[in-house]
């Protein structure tokens, strides 16, 4: 292999060498296992079943440099803040918390609600955050998760005490800025929601101008009994960025986890979400849209572990792929032997807008219990000819009809967002992305 194909690996080695000079988000003890895996430096290839459809060459070839992290001016990010007007905003520039662009941290936290940078945790909080990470079932071969765990210098810890409803949503705005070389951001975020508590978090990823960036976040979330967490991810980075994220969630008894992912940007997006049920009566709703144009590659993976009885999961993901873009959906629902009365639904629908677009979808069920209700299905289709003609017969051009039908296809997911301005923002972004598409083959 040529020298320059190991750029990311070289960067990792450099970091490992310079280990002593850095302030890391996590303790040496927690990092140790990840560092070993990073030192071995084995990246997945397309021979790995998990990565069969997703080539990593471009990502691994990035020439990673240190980000200067000049803080952009407030105006340039205001439109992104407007996405969620009634929220607390925390802004991260190339991973680093920007005090000047963010709401005052003291004004964000309230009684029973801790919002802290990883670097500022008390030792008790550190223990708690790392406990949440350890409760997630980490796998050794997920090197990107270990890249965040082992080498992250940034991250956020959110903790909601028992019986606390946090009313104001938290908006985490991650901004990639233009640097001389590709900047790499690998934050570790931990969210812990106490017994019967509620929290809403909106994570947005954007880039300014033609930022070259690699974003590799690892998030860990734990929901205690009877609690609720609504998590939204909006990916709008430019097509000179790569984004590989790992999210690991533990849902306690009778708790409900909601996730919405709108993956509209990046050259390469890989989103891996693993949800485990930690007690009976836990449930989750997962929604998502991946929208690709040009040569974008979007890969969504979900893994649901039904380890307890009476748990429900409801997944619905939709792909819209234009031009030469490519989508991958890989969803595994595991229903363990004692997880009786499981109700698991999984649906993946894809709309191909061009002959050269492609999607590989693989919804999977592995059921070891006998008294369960499971349904899964995947479709790949084009715009409905009859519907197109019906609209045309009323005076609407074929291109506009195609846009209307495509927007409608997306709206069946976005209408469940539940926070009106966020829904409008996401729908507006989907519409403007669709308007840019040349629906040549409609």
């Amino acid at each position: 292999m040529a020298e320059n194909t190991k750029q990311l690996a070289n960067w990792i080695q450099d970091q490992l060498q310079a280990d002593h000079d850095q302030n890391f988000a996590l303790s040496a003890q927690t990092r140790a296992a990840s560092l070993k895996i990073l030192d071995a430096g084995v990246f997945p290839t397309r021979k790995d079943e998990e990565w069969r459809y997703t080539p990593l060459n471009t990502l691994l070839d990035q020439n990673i440099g240190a980000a200067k992290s000049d803080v952009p001016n407030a105006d340039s990010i205001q439109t992104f803040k407007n996405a969620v007007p009634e929220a607390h905003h925390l802004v991260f520039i190339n991973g680093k918390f920007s005090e000047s662009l963010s709401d005052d941290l003291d004004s964000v936290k309230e009684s029973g609600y801790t919002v802290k940078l990883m670097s500022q945790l008390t030792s008790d909080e550190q223990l708690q955050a790392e406990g949440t990470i350890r409760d997630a079932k980490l796998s050794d071969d997920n090197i990107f998760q270990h890249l965040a765990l082992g080498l992250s210098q940034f991250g956020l810890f959110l903790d909601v005490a028992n019986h606390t409803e946090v009313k104001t949503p938290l908006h985490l705005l991650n901004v990639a800025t233009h640097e001389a070389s590709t900047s790499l951001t690998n934050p570790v975020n931990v969210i812990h929601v106490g017994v019967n508590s509620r929290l809403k978090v909106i994570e947005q990823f954007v880039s300014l101008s033609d930022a070259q960036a690699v974003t590799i976040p690892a998030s860990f979330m734990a929901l205690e009994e009877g609690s609720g967490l609504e998590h939204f991810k909006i990916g709008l980075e430019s097509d000179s960025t790569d984004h590989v994220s790992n999210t690991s969630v533990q849902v306690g008894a009778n708790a409900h986890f909601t996730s919405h992912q709108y993956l509209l940007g990046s050259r390469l997006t890989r989103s891996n979400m693993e949800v485990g049920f930690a007690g009976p009566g836990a449930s989750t709703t997962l929604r998502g849209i991946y929208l690709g144009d040009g040569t974008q590659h979007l890969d969504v993976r979900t893994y649901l572990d039904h380890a307890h009885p009476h748990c429900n999961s409801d997944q619905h993901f939709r792909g819209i792929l234009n031009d030469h873009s490519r989508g991958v959906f890989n969803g595994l629902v595991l229903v363990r032997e004692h997880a009786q009365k499981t109700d698991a639904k999984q649906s993946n629908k894809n709309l191909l807008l061009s002959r050269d677009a492609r999607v590989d979808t693989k919804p999977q069920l592995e059921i070891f219990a006998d008294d369960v209700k499971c349904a899964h299905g995947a479709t790949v289709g084009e715009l409905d000819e009859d519907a197109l003609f019906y609209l045309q017969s009323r005076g609407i051009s074929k291109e506009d009809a195609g846009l209307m039908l495509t927007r409608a296809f997306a709206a069946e997911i976005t209408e469940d967002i539940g926070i009106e301005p966020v829904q409008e923002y996401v729908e507006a972004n989907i519409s403007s992305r669709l308007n840019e598409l040349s629906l040549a083959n409609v």
Partner: protein
Amino acid sequence: MLSIKDLQVSVEGKPILKGLNLEVKPGEIHAIMGPNGSGKSTLAHVLSGREGYSVDAGTAAYKNLDLLDMAPEIRAREGMFLAFQYPIEIPGVNNTSFLKKALNEIRKHRGDEELDAIDFLSLIKKQMKLVEMKEDLLKRPVNQGFSGGEKKRNEILQMAVLNPTLAILDETDSGLDIDALRIVAGGVNKLRSEDNAFVVITHYQRLLDYIVPDFVHVLSDGKIIKSGTKDLALELEERGYDWLLEKAESPS
């Protein structure tokens, strides 16, 4: 207004229309009757520009334009309207915004100003009364979950809002109860004027009691085998099609 000459159309190599002639003038109502599978819907689809039909011979002129050479949306903007025999359900597309978009496309084409939301709403409210349609159907996705009769009323509502010059109604009366039939027919009669024309495809003479046609044509095996006045419909009601078919088959 519409002049069809020797129209021959096939689908996947199978001839369906086999030399059809029809002249429609402004102010006229033409009824087309005929056995199942004779090509009535095919004619309606070809005239409105649906893909999948091959025109093997003949011409169709509409307002002196070469109809068969126009995109479906241009035909609509030029004032053609097809009420579908089987209206299409379109999940996720709101009935009102769809119709507003359609109307404004047509207005733009005519050089009229587009209607804003308020003006459009007052127009549509007025036309809904005409077809006695429940208001909540406006808030739903186009035709989705509508009953058979509701779909047909929605077609007539669209027609009333878009105010076409030439409307083709493909079995709009099928599946309607007597009240709905009267309402739909009432809608057509309200819209009727010296400047527009209707082609009404139907199996039932009953409809023609409400929408009184100037001409009745019998389409059989891809051709119009007999034309007459509304009395022809009464005769068909009594005698069926057999006597005509026999006549058509035996070259005398």
